[in-house]
């Protein structure tokens, strides 16, 4: 034990040390925010710009693919999207391929009080959960009522005025995906019917969605908490995502420092000529 060098100690560092460090670097900026500036990426600007093109009365489909675990990443952006679309006078159709989509819908209603002021069935509809991925999206493109005979609350689609104007892909001005599940909309609605597609991905989806963005299959993209914070900045409504960005900064910095520390023993052993 006495012969251990600093590099040996680093190599065998107790994981509780960095677990506690994570707790510290997350809580500290939340208690005492730093407020580092955020540069807005062109893809986020394009998403927000696309929302601004929506005309009064246009119908927008919003696919809430996120589960409650991805709220911190995507809910902030969904709130901005919803507020912006309501301000533009759009009519909104929500649905989701995540089993807890109803919980996300309830949370969204709590975070966007304006949703409560809209007339349900005329300006906004929540269709609920759907199964079937691509097959469901392809079928919705030609006949929405065959996938959703009723909305989430059991009200028949035929009795919902908004849905009589929005029963197939051509009736929609735009599709917005949330978190994941973007490919089915790109392939079944975007490519097949020319409906503009955009949305928000969880952070790890950023690189996977980049080819679709570069090819123009999606017109805009906000990625992770940062994307949500950028949307909040563009809309001038800083909220949860903006507050979280300092914690993102501190944890990412810790992450890199730990990687550097973990590599010191490797570099040291290489200098010494070991393995």
């Amino acid at each position, binding site marked *: 034990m006495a012969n251990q060098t600093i590099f040996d100690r680093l190599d065998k*560092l107790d*994981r509780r040390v*960095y*677990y506690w460090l*994570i707790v510290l670097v997350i809580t500290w900026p939340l208690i005492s925010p730093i407020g*580092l*500036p*955020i*540069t807005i*990426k062109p893809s986020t600007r394009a998403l927000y710009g696309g929302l601004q093109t929506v005309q009064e009365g246009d119908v927008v489909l919003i696919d809430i693919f996120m*589960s*409650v*675990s*991805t*709220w*911190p990443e995507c809910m902030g952006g969904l709130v901005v999207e919803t507020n912006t679309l309501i301000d533009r006078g759009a009519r909104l159709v929500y649905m989701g391929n995540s089993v*807890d989509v*109803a*919980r996300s819908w309830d949370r969204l209603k709590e975070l966007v009080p304006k949703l409560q002021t809209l007339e349900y069935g005329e300006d906004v509809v929540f269709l609920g959960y*759907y*199964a*079937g*991925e691509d*097959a*469901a999206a*392809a*079928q919705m493109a*030609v*006949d929405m009522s*065959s*996938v959703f005979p009723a909305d989430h*609350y059991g009200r028949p689609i035929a009795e919902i005025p908004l849905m009589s104007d929005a029963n197939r892909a051509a009736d929609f001005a735009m599709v917005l995906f949330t978190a994941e599940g973007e490919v089915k909309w790109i392939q079944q609605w975007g490519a*097949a019917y020319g409906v503009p597609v955009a949305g928000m991905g969880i*952070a790890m989806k*950023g*690189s*996977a969605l*980049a*080819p679709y963005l*570069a090819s123009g299959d999606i017109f805009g993209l906000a*990625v*992770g908490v*940062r994307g949500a914070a950028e949307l909040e900045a563009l809309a001038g409504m800083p909220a949860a995502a903006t507050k979280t*960005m300092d914690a*993102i*900064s*501190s*944890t*990412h*910095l*810790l*992450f*890199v420092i*730990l*990687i550097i*520390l*973990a*590599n010191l023993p*490797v*570099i040291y052993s290489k200098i010494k000529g070991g393995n």
Partner: protein
Amino acid sequence: MSFIKSTAFKYIPILVFAIIIADYFFAISGLGSIAEALRQFAVVISNIALGLGVISLLKIHGKNVQRRVEGRWLYSIVTIVTFLTVFILGLINTNGEQYQWAFRNVYTTLEQTMYASTGFFIVSSAYRAFRARNIDAALLLISGCIVVFTNAPIGEVIWSGFPVIGDWLLGPGQLPGYRVLMLIAGFGTIVYAYRVITGNERGFFGGGE
């Protein structure tokens, strides 16, 4: 039965594939309604699969309890009891207070806690596994760290070059590789479809090869 296995199972997928593909690419009149019906079947089958999942869950955990599988059977009891409780509450009324309470205060909190705890595991695994033992690993590590600093505002504060390099890595740097992967997957799907159409792909209905 042998006729169904040898002939019907072979030709039904061929027919379904042909109709769906023809409807998507050529929009042949008269084919649309058949394709619609097939897609509706797919949606219905997807919903049935959820029920199948429930049966599978009860079967696996029921066996664990029945056989008192060491280190598992107690958890299986918890799983079955939780499932049945929420299932019954849901059957009574999905908008009821009890069901909503379980969703809001049990499911939501547990799901978020589980997801948040992955942050600790990511850091732990990064510390233990992200070692630059050779040039390739070192390049990967450096690129990763630059992308990390691109996504966090602090990166720009430390050095304004981080987001420039990071955006290049996320854009032109990775696009060719990712596109190749997507194209390979696309070609793979075409080959798979061709094998189904020609009756050579039977694995999806338990037919072996």
